[in-house]
């Protein structure tokens, strides 16, 4: 595999965002994933989302672990620093990076193997710390790079390409995140850009840990008959429960929403998410009820999708640590060192 530079040709008529940038300015290098891979659609949604809410490319930090999904951070926003770390350990890199500079946007892209098997511990603890980041799982139920072993998100009864059946129950990241106290938990499908783009935008602006579990079929190892993560199966069993529109603070709500079905949620920076309940009985603001409903529908073989739980802004990692509003890496050294006089005073107690 060699690196292919993506030619940057932008037509003058391409639409520009508030920063004067086109969508092309949010792209990365050319994807080396299989043609038709769900992950590439997610990459496109991330490009669209970042362009749409005028994120300065250098202010986006892209983090990942190991696997097909983790490669994708190279395929969007080439103007932002990327860190492709070790398998399952992206959350700890994100934690350290975020500790150093809270002023940037952190987006982590991981897979079901990277998150739910080798990285399950770090994933859970990033949620516990309420790390201010958007964590996207590109969930396809298999290990692609090692050619099709089941992952921990594979459903009971699902068949591998070579015919083997999975009998172990899956770990569901959405239920896990809701249980662990995450305040922004969503599920989507790589094939539904309309649903996914506003979720990414809201997730980036959400204060604290935001999870989007994106069902993202693997065309090579998990798109066959008998798989519960194929395009066909997902399309058939995919149930949008709550649609979220993301509205930045500077934009007015213009659409005509029906009273009772919509629920505007104001975010810490003044942005709003307008939730449309497509499933009348579903309440995305009730943690316990949401968890119960997701589980029940799952038993019936359906994936509820959309912004499945959104809570009020909690204290994030920095609030809990009582760090300044500005980045720790910008605190001048003079403020950090007690100097020779300070040292002399400290040493008094060691005499």
């Amino acid at each position, binding site marked *: *595999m*060699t*690196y292919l530079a993506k030619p940057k040709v932008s037509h003058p008529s391409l639409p520009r965002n508030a920063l004067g940038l086109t969508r092309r300015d949010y792209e990365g*290098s050319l994807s080396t994933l299989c043609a038709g891979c769900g992950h590439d659609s997610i990459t496109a949604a991330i490009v669209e989302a970042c362009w749409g809410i005028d994120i*300065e*490319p*250098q*202010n986006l*930090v892209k983090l990942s672990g190991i696997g097909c999904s983790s490669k994708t*951070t*190279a395929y969007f926003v*080439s*103007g*932002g*620093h*990327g*860190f*492709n*770390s*070790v398998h399952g*350990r992206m*959350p*700890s*890199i*994100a*934690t*350290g*990076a*975020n*500790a*150093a*500079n809270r002023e*940037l946007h952190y987006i982590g892209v991981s897979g079901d193997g990277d998150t739910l098997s080798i990285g399950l*511990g*770090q994933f*859970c*603890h990033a949620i516990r*710390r309420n790390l201010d980041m958007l964590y996207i799982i590109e969930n396809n139920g298999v290990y692609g790079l090692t050619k099709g072993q089941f992952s921990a998100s594979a459903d009971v009864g699902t068949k591998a390409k070579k015919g083997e059946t999975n009998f172990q129950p899956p770990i569901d990241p959405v239920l896990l995140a809701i249980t662990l106290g995450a305040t922004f938990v969503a599920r989507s499908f790589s094939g539904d850009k309309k649903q996914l783009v506003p979720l990414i935008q809201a997730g980036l602006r959400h204060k604290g840990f935001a999870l989007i579990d994106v069902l993202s079929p693997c065309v090579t190892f998990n798109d066959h008959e008998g798989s519960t993560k194929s395009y066909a199966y997902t399309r058939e069993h995919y149930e949008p429960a709550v649609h979220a529109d993301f509205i930045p603070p500077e934009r007015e709500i213009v659409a005509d929403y029906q009273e009772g079905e919509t629920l505007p949620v104001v975010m810490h920076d003044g942005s709003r998410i307008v939730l449309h309940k497509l499933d009348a009985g579903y309440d995305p603001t009730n943690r316990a009820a949401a968890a119960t409903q997701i589980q029940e529908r799952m038993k019936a073989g359906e994936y509820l999708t959309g912004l499945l739980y959104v809570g009020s802004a909690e204290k994030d990692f*920095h609030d809990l*640590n*009582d*760090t*300044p*509003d500005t980045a*720790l*890496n910008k*605190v001048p*050294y003079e*403020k*950090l*060192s*007690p*100097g*020779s006089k300070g*040292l002399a005073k*400290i*040493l008094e*107690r*060691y*005499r």
Partner: protein
Amino acid sequence: MSRTPAPRVNDFVIKIATVNGTGSASANTLLMKAIFRSGVPVMGKNYFPSNIQGLPTWYEIRVTKDGYVARSGRVDIMVAMNAETYARDVKEVMPGGYLIYDSTWPRPALLKREDITVLGVPLAKMCNENFNGVRTRILMKNICYAGVLAALLDLDIEQIRQLLADTYAKKPQLVDSNMKAVQLGYDYAKQHFACPLPLHVEKMTKTGGHIMIDGNTAAALGCVFAGATVAAWYPITPSTSLMDAFKAFCEQLRVDPETGRKNFAFIQAEDELAAIGMTIGAMWNGARAFTATSGPGLSLMTEFLGLAYYAEVPAVIFDIQRVGPSTGMPTRTQQCDLIAAAYASHGDTRHVCLYPSNPEECFYMAVQAFDLAERLQTPVLVMSDLDIGMNDWMCRELQWDDGYRPDLGKMLSEEQIRQLDKFYRYLDRDGDGIPWRTLPGVHPKAAYFTRGSGHTQYGVYTEDAAEYQIVVDRLKKKWETAKKLVPRAVIDATAGGDIGIVSLGSCDGAIREALDVLEAEGVRVNYMRVRSFPFTEDVECFLAAHRLLFVVEQNRDAQFRSLLTLETQVDRSKLRSLLHYNGLPISSSFIVEGVLEEVRPRPREQALGAAG
């Protein structure tokens, strides 16, 4: 080896045997500090169990007018407070020495020995009569033996009062109760024994300009002065006190007086894998960050260390070494992670290591570790150990140069980035093997992709043979540059001749004392203390210049000797290992005996020589 009777004033060892969790630490610290404040050099070593309450623990105080910092291997006064260990404690006392025990109960037969003086003090009885509450009585019993020793050793009682006042500045009622206990023991000893003993303390003026501090506290202080703002770790003995000290210093020194906000982030990680990940993430993003661990934690960190080496991310790791393998003996000391740290991780990896020999050096090397990590864009491991980290050492006062500013190394500023046509992360522009780096959030032109997978010098993914090799060869060049930046060895070649001792870290105190003893025996030996990996040029020169080299270290497998044979040209037949690895700090007598065995002609040879 013949033993001359040691002078009794300001040169003896007290050992205190107690039960873990009874608060004996404050009594022992009180005694040691009282001696220190009398101007007499003193050393304290704590031999404690991996336990919170109930197991035996010992504290050794060496009063040493010559200022030696190692164990001597002898015990002159034993304070036997733990009936469970009476048998072994009584055996350890040198002939002519003393044993103090609690005579509240009848003297056990175990404590019988004709060649020592046994002093009984009814400690429990006195404390039961004078204090209320079980816990208080147990604690005060310990403070009470400190009072007994104060009388026997002729310590200044007013100085003890002052020490208690300093310690309990915020709880004055504790000063009175503690002083009462001290006085009980003091008065009892004065009334019942001939005070002072022939071995006692006489005031000197040798501790001016010195402090008593442990290495973990000193290292934590170094991190504060280096400007570290992110500290991530997972609790593990014996490194935890380093993190506790850093947090305590920061709570005092780093809270913004105007906003009340904390200019530091202190993160207890879920495991050591996360702790090192956080450290790497933070330093990658421009904050000085560190973690502290010990052997088992280092094992868990190795994958990430390889990433940081290859992706060239700075990180600072303190390894407070403890006895291995595996869980080993968590509260005992060794230098057993030398190889694990030097080559941590799979593939061709080598890491910069620093080897402090005492708390003073922990302070300076902590600062140096951050500068080296950023200058070389690589992890730096500070290889301390339990003996340095958790024992109080008498050190020179720490100094600070207010002109110090963190060395960020080759970090491009926003202005420099703007002037660049294009930024290439892993390109060797200066010929020293060190590329330039950038921080996120500064400029889109500065963005690059950090990865542990194969990459070209331009920072893009590769599986190309030649492109891969360009980068790893440059890393080797950087390693050569590191040799010029790391601290040089400390060499004492005043002895002349062609015999030398080569060592590192906490062996230093014992070796320096051994050199004096050997000289008195007519054996003159040069000494080199290595302070860093990679080895500097002077290490090679010293090794080449000697015919016989004793390699002194505290592990079974001669790890330091292995590093020397792997990384220098030394002829291995010249190297003799002196290995101390039972978990106790190395003593000077161990080294003296080891050297003499090799250099002294055996009696038979002597006889033959005389005949010839």
